[in-house]
């Protein structure tokens, strides 16, 4: 399973945590497509806590975290 964590406005109309079958989703981009999140709306994409790109591959056991543009201090 791949654990997808959604934050901030990405939670609107979706679950906070979504579990996906790793045999179907090969890249972060596949995940975004099925969650109906446009790639250009993702400001921070983390795979296992590391900043990643939509074309990066995902595998069983990965945690993918998605954030829209946010900031603070």
């Amino acid at each position, binding site marked *: 399973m791949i654990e997808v*964590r959604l934050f*901030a*406005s990405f939670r609107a109309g979706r679950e906070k945590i979504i579990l996906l079958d790793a045999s179907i989703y090969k890249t972060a981009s596949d995940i975004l497509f099925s969650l109906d999140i446009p790639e250009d709306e993702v400001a921070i994409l983390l795979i296992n806590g590391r*900043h990643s790109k939509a074309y990066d591959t995902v595998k069983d056991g990965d*945690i993918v975290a998605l954030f829209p*543009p*946010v*900031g*603070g*201090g």
Partner: protein
Amino acid sequence: MSTSYAGKLLRVNLSDSTLRTEDLDLELAEKYIGGRGLGTKILYDEGVATVDPLSAENKLLLMTGPLTGAIVPTGGRYMAITKSPLTGLIASSNSGGVWGARLKCAGWDGIIIEGAAASPMRLHIEDGNAELLPADGLWGKTSEETESELKGIYPKASVLNIGPGGESGSLLACIINEADRAAGRSGVGAVMGSKNLKAISVIASKSSVEPYDKEALAQGNKSALAMIKENGVTSGGLPTYGTAVLVNIINNIGSYPTKNWQESYDPDADLTSGETMTDHHLVKNTACHRCPIACGRVVKVGEKTVGGPEYEVLWAYGANCGVSDIEAIFEANYWCNELGIDAISTPCTIAAAMELYEKGFITDEECEGVPLKWGSTDAIVEWTKRMGYGETALGKLMAQGSYRLCEHYGQPDLSMSVKKQEMPAYDARGIQGIGINYATSNRGGCHVRGYLISPEILGLPEQLDRLATEGKAEWTKIFQDLTAVIDSSGMCLFTSFALGAPDYAELINAATGTSYNADTLLAAGERIYNLERLFNKAAGMESDADKLPKRLTDVPIAEGPSKGEISKIADTLPEYYEARGWKEAFPTEETIERLGL
């Protein structure tokens, strides 16, 4: 020819109750911009670096910048500049709200407060007139009580005050305006308290200042507003979730200090996140003077509506104290504002006390009925009150900050501070650049001297690898210099998510008639940063003081997404000194000359 500087400073001597108007040295003002820069210059030139911070010889400057009171986005901020009783070094704390704009519109660039009164006093300013009045009846009152009492007398005034924290000499005391905006850090409120000055109310009949070039400023304002509106952070993230949206981000990269930095990932962080606050507790947003961003929060606690906590506060009372009850954090944050104590250093000191308690150094007896247990909601609220009121022997000790507390128990390494000031909510083991900034910040542990989180985590203006060290020294220098400019200008640092040095140059030039470009403006920021360092040198800062707690350099992160990481500050610090033109932590003669110091 007009300029957005008011051209006047008010010098208040509390020892002999005299008030004097002084002309602003315009040449000096332009060289050091205003606010933080000009305030430091005045403090340095008047020989304050060597005085005892809590003596009558220390001076407290409340300074506006050239854009405070001007028609620009967020143009309403002021800075409290003094010698810090917490660090013994330069203190410069920034605050929003409306008070700064009122002071400027009343015709003052700043107030220089010196001496000490024999009994509690307050200052009232109405445009060009100022008077000192007795404040015995206000002494002991909280921020809200002080504000509402003075508002009762002067309905059109903005009120700045200290709370019981500043009165009782807590080294974590801050200065509060509008009851919940704070010049929060480095104990600036303790200095005001040591002078027996309770409050300053200001009435201004104007609502903006006349700039040098009205048309150019209107144009600059328009394009700055457009950039703020186009930027996803300033138009979407900050207004919707406030700064607290960072809780989940920083936790998900495993750099979210937990239980006094013993861990760096909190599985329960979402319970105290910006999302949770917005979805379940938010009543409304609030904005400082002329701010289109409105990152402020108002939340409900029981029947009360109160100012909501910033990211740093949610973290410091939350994960750092092992607490996941967001309402308890609202309550504790409320008491920080009411009592006028720093909502970062106060909870961080409680976290240090919790570790001392866990390890058996603090006894149950010393806790006097409120054990300092991880996760205790009672403990965070009650110890905040005890620290703010200076109650119980341990509460008094904790009110002096985590360094003095941990040193008292022979455990100084348990204080997660730099130069005796507590570090904020980002573990520098998993974010290399922010560690350089913590170590070299002139006011001790602080994120807003050079907010490397922006490029290292948020990808603004570009994404850097948070674990890499290469190039981070230079990035830190640029961020620190630009921040010194923004802090000196009178605008809010958060505008820098959308604006860059050329935009600030355009606004400052239109307001004052200066001819800064991006490079010369950054050089002015560099001058300010170096002057602060010279102040610290004169104040006795040791050349090995730019360091991080041992936990960050010697103990790898144990679990979570940044497992195994450690701060590589030993490698990056020499690069930073080289980029700055410093030798052994201080500017070389060459650097001093290059910057015209």
